[in-house]
């Protein structure tokens, strides 16, 4: 692996209506690493993920995807949308609200981006999509439209959709929130395999088990600040801050 980090975040800050939601976030994620992001509700986890692929434009700071700065081009101006799209295609994202496209059925939802963004042939895209849907246990709902799916089913399709692009970096926003324990296990297994295959992942999660078992780094957000950032064994056994200790106690 090269020494350029897959994701580097420098002094990222973001506020909404004058309220600072992220403050001076610094984070380096190396290639193949899995980073778990923990934190209480409203602490800025989703906002941080959304800043990484520039869905939310930060007020200050910069983000580099595999060494390339996103959102701002070398001359310091706002990046062209086309350029932005090129960098984003190297990242994938699973949204907290799933955001499946309602006018496409399950299979089309998964096939759409490889065809449209990567210019993949239909047949190949279909094969990949079917394989992924099998992986998440949704192959029997291929032709269903999103509004007919249960919460967990939507979430699984959303995961398959993000994986279909086989992006270098995948951002997961609570990918197992709507799943039953069985499914959680299966999906986490899929993610573990991915990490084994060298994918870089940043995962917002409330699954302490997963964070402990899979991550290389655990990051704890509190009121928009990273107050702890350590290896999982240290984080869970011997947290530095009182805040994290309290958090872990309750879970």
């Amino acid at each position, binding site marked *: 692996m090269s020494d350029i980090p897959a994701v580097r975040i420098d002094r990222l800050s973001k506020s909404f209506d004058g309220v600072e939601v992220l403050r001076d976030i610094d984070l380096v994620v190396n290639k193949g690493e899995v980073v778990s992001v923990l934190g209480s509700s409203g602490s800025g986890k989703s906002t941080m993920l959304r800043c990484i692929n520039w869905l939310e434009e930060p007020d200050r700071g910069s983000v580099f995807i595999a060494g390339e700065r996103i959102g701002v081009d070398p001359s310091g101006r706002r990046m062209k949308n086309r350029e932005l*799209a090129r*960098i*984003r295609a190297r990242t994938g*994202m699973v*949204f907290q609200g799933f955001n499946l496209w309602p*006018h496409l059925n399950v299979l089309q939802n998964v096939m759409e981006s490889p065809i449209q963004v990567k210019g993949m042939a239909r047949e190949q895209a279909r094969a990949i999509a079917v394989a992924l849907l099998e992986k998440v246990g949704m192959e029997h709902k291929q032709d269903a*439209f999103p509004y007919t799916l249960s919460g967990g089913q939507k979430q699984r399709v959303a995961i398959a959709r993000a994986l279909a692009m086989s992006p270098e970096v995948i951002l997961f926003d609570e990918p197992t929130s709507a799943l039953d324990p069985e499914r959680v296990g299966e999906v986490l297994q899929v993610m573990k395999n991915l990490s084994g295959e060298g994918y870089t992942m940043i995962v917002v999660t409330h699954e302490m088990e997963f964070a402990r078992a899979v991550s290389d780094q655990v990051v704890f957000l509190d009121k928009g600040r990273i107050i702890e950032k350590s290896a999982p064994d240290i984080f869970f056994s011997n947290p530095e801050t009182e805040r994290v200790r309290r958090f872990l106690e309750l879970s």
Partner: protein
Amino acid sequence: MNEWQILWDVRATFVSGFLNTLVLFGVSVCGAFAAGCAMTYVLEQGGIAARVLRGFINGMRMLPFLILAYLLYYGLPSLGLRMSAWTAGLIALVVYHGAYFAEILRGTRLVLPEGYVEAAKAHGFTPFRLFRRIILPQLVIRSRPLLGNQLIIALKDTAFLTIITVQELTAAANSASATYFIPMEAFVVVIALYWLISIGLELSLRWAARFGARRGFENV
């Protein structure tokens, strides 16, 4: 002589007027819809172009169609640009209704959940593909009844082109009714023929609605 008999005798005028209307309508509405989609795309991109276009669209919405047609047909010749009645009429229809189509789509865009767009952006869709594959289909499905309204208005606006001497259906009726003085009968025929087209439109839209209904877009 019976009034209907007279109408029957001049049926050739009506048939050719009807065909002209169909052609004008078909060509202009396809052009206008394409123009509307293109304008919506430009609006979607934001920036100065979008602001200028927004002004243009609002200008079109404020300007009476007749005056646009007048300006194109009677105003431009004084600038040395002379168009045939058909060209002027078609351009007027396309530009004018294009602006309205754009406004309808823009209105629907305002309340389109942003999550769908963000999902596509996160996957690296370029702006154009994002618009064509994710945004536009949903806008069209969601604004179907409004598009239906607009199609029917466009159909009737072809009638304004009588003033620039395109002989379409209304022109045929006016001429028949003025010549033979059979106003009611002539207009009954015209309404029937317009109605026929708009029923055709309604049926095809209803057929298209099933597409949206299967995707859960229509909750009653």
